[in-house]
């Protein structure tokens, strides 16, 4: 075989990796593409997992959802690790400014005791929900096959840990960093009637086997109702209770949720659009879980902003799900 050597030694002999070129053509690829496509092992696995010998490693049968190519699900934000941490570093810098502003001016310790108690009872226990979300997303990252899918979930999982930490810091600011407020808040999570349906729901998600079912329940259905209720509707209600400064400390969550809609919407659109079988499966899961998410949040809504606000959130979720061809019990106002 004779090989033609280009005289211009700076001229590239190829523009990108073969596996990237097979998808996108041999042209300069983006960093997102080279970081995200076809990096995982796909075949010739040596041993069956001892923790679940039904399937092989990286086996796409670990969910009932079928995709001809899981890479049809990709991230509209084009987050590879570097882009992800760069983005979050900026968000945390803004959050840090707010936290230290609140701290220096004693904005939370100045609040009436009753309002502080409301924060500890109605807001801070969500840190435990965040830890559940963290665990669920770690599981998904460990089981999803395509890197475009698994990486979105590990980013989200770490985000949820971070959000849980921000919520915890609200309590630490209230109690002057002794941990007493966190202990009190955890007591509500464990024993207050208000939280028991939610705690049961979170524990129920922790035993869901199918990872796609889990991402639907966690990242679309529960979050779809919860983030809207807590960080928008309850946020306004806290303001009416004189705790408007707390809003500064939950700005991260609002920005984060707005951004997360980009990838969750893209993911459900791709999966639901793939086949009728997928759509049916998603519908079945939605029928099963959406009412549970609603019921789990109901006591929280009742104790704060009122159940109408939760109904509004439900209607908004319903409108969103309709775009993917999914029906839910929410009624548009």
């Amino acid at each position: 075989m004779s090989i033609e050597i280009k005289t211009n030694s700076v001229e590239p002999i190829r523009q990108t990796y073969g596996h990237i070129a097979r998808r996108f053509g041999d042209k300069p690829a983006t960093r997102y593409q080279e970081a995200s496509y076809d990096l995982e092992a796909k075949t010739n696995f040596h041993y069956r997992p001892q923790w679940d010998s039904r399937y092989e490693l990286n086996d796409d049968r670990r969910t009932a959802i079928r995709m001809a190519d899981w890479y049809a699900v990709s991230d509209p934000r084009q987050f590879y690790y570097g882009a992800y941490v760069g983005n979050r570093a900026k968000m945390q810098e803004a959050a840090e400014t707010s936290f230290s502003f609140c701290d220096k001016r004693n904005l939370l310790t100045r609040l009436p005791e009753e309002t502080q108690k409301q924060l500890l009872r109605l807001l801070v226990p969500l840190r435990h929900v965040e830890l559940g979300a963290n665990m669920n997303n770690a599981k998904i990252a460990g089981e999803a096959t395509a890197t475009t899918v698994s990486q979105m979930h590990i980013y989200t999982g770490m985000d949820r840990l971070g959000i849980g930490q921000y919520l915890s810091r609200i309590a630490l600011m209230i109690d002057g960093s002794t941990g007493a407020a966190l202990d009190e808040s955890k007591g509500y999570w464990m024993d207050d009637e208000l939280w028991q349906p939610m705690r049961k729901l979170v524990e129920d998600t922790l035993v869901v086997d199918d990872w796609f079912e889990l991402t639907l329940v966690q990242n679309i259905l529960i979050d779809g109702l919860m983030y809207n209720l807590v960080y928008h509707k309850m946020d306004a209600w806290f303001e009416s209770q004189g705790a408007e400064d707390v809003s500064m400390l939950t700005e991260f969550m609002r920005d984060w949720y707005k951004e997360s809609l980009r990838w969750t919407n893209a993911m459900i659109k791709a999966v639901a659009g793939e086949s009728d079988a997928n759509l049916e499966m998603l519908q079945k899961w939605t029928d099963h879980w959406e009412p549970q998410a609603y019921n789990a949040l109901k006591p929280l809504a009742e104790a704060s902003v009122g159940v109408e606000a939760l109904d509004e959130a439900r209607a908004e979720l319903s409108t969103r799900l309709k775009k993917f061809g999914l029906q839910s019990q929410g009624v548009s106002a």
Partner: protein
Amino acid sequence: MVSKNKKLNLKDKYQYLTRDMAWEPTYQKKKDIFPDEDFEGIKITDWSQWEDPFRLTMDAYWKYQAEKEKKLYAIFDAFAQNNGHQNISDARYVNALKLFLTGVSPLEHAAFQGYSKVGRQFSGAGARVACQMQAIDELRHSQTQQHAMSHYNKHFNGLHDAAHMHDRVWFLSVPKSFFDDARTAGPFEFLTAISFSFEYVLTNLLFVPFMSGAAYNGDMATVTFGFSAQSDEARHMTLGLEVIKFILEQHEDNVPIVQRWIDKWFWRGFRLLSLVSMMMDYMLPNKVMSWSEAWEVYYEQNGGALFKDLERYGIRPPKYQDVANDAKHHLSHQLWSTFYQYSQATNFHTWIPGKEEMDWMSEKYPDTFDKYYRPRYEYWAKEHAEGRRFYNNTLPQLCQVCQVPTLFTEMGEPTRLSHRQMKYEGERYHFCSEACCDIFKHEPEKYIQAWLPVHQIYQGNCEGGDVETVVQKYYHIEVGVDNFEYIGSPDHKHWLSIKGKSFDSKAEKSEQDAA
């Protein structure tokens, strides 16, 4: 409601910000939430004894990691814009990167998947969080390596299809099976294998002297990602040591289980790193440190200190460490000799080291190189000069466990090949060593499943019956471009043109003669 209680110290505060977010479940059974925690027989009596190996909250993580990434990508951009590949010591060096990208980078991705999994499996929230941070770090390494090599891939061959090759190519089943072995094990064995034996005990050998070597060979992109990745590694190593101490302190029944894992994973890792030995001694044209020196510093000295520290738990050094220590005088030479013969089936080139390099090896390996290996190279160089570049056309016998060809010699007997075999359920299995045979005996039902590349070729599962078809079609190694001898290869000619020289086959051959 400023409380009268004492202000939290850093450690307690970190616990509030991580494990205190967890709770004792009451609506679901703990066993159902964490079903994989018990089956290995490890007894954990009290997760609250877990010592967080580092105290990094997510805000600090994002901040520091973003800073690292910013620095790293600035260098990648500068490297590509300035055609940094032209400034490396010699194009032979790039062959080490080919081995790295196909052999190591896919492991980073497997580590991401493995740590995500264990980051959910443990019921101790502190351990889960530490594992999750490592998961996302490993994803980082997998991706920064793709980006670092991206520019090289545009100018050299053999880097173009790493993940595809990793799943198929014969010698890449060595790293692949290593990680598959760990990922298919339970969560405690996974951490003993990867966090402790691999990260803590062995990876310094890959990432520290080799990356330093990359710097010495003008490869700014690789040294930068290598050292930037290592800055995460310091956290991972701390996790590795903490997890071992934690398991050992929890229950005395854990000691023999962990000891067996240490024996197994030290050996598995040592065999995997035999590939690195040849990268260091043969594939770095400018040499920093020999494999045997690196082994002395990073295993005998550091590993020695570590195992001395672990004595108090009843842990002894790995069972076959003496064999590994003895092998430091031979390993790189035995590996390179093998790859030299099988270059028709690799995505990188091989060559006979030049005269100065051989003299360097004589100096670094005074008791072995001139006696056992130099004559072999001189013979092959002569053959090559006479137009008979040696390739071995018989496929090698692979070890059932480590999957390296059975190329190693017995301890203290460098002219006798080491080989073991045993029958299991009517089938005969072959091993490179007593240590691999031991590993098999303990879990035969696992290792009989191994996807052995040579067997698979002979069974007709690799798109062809002859090596050339398998290499071209199944492996995606472009015959005549990616493989065979370095001298006269497209990479070699390309390099000469970069340096303003032209390829003269006669001159090159006589240069080989001089070697």
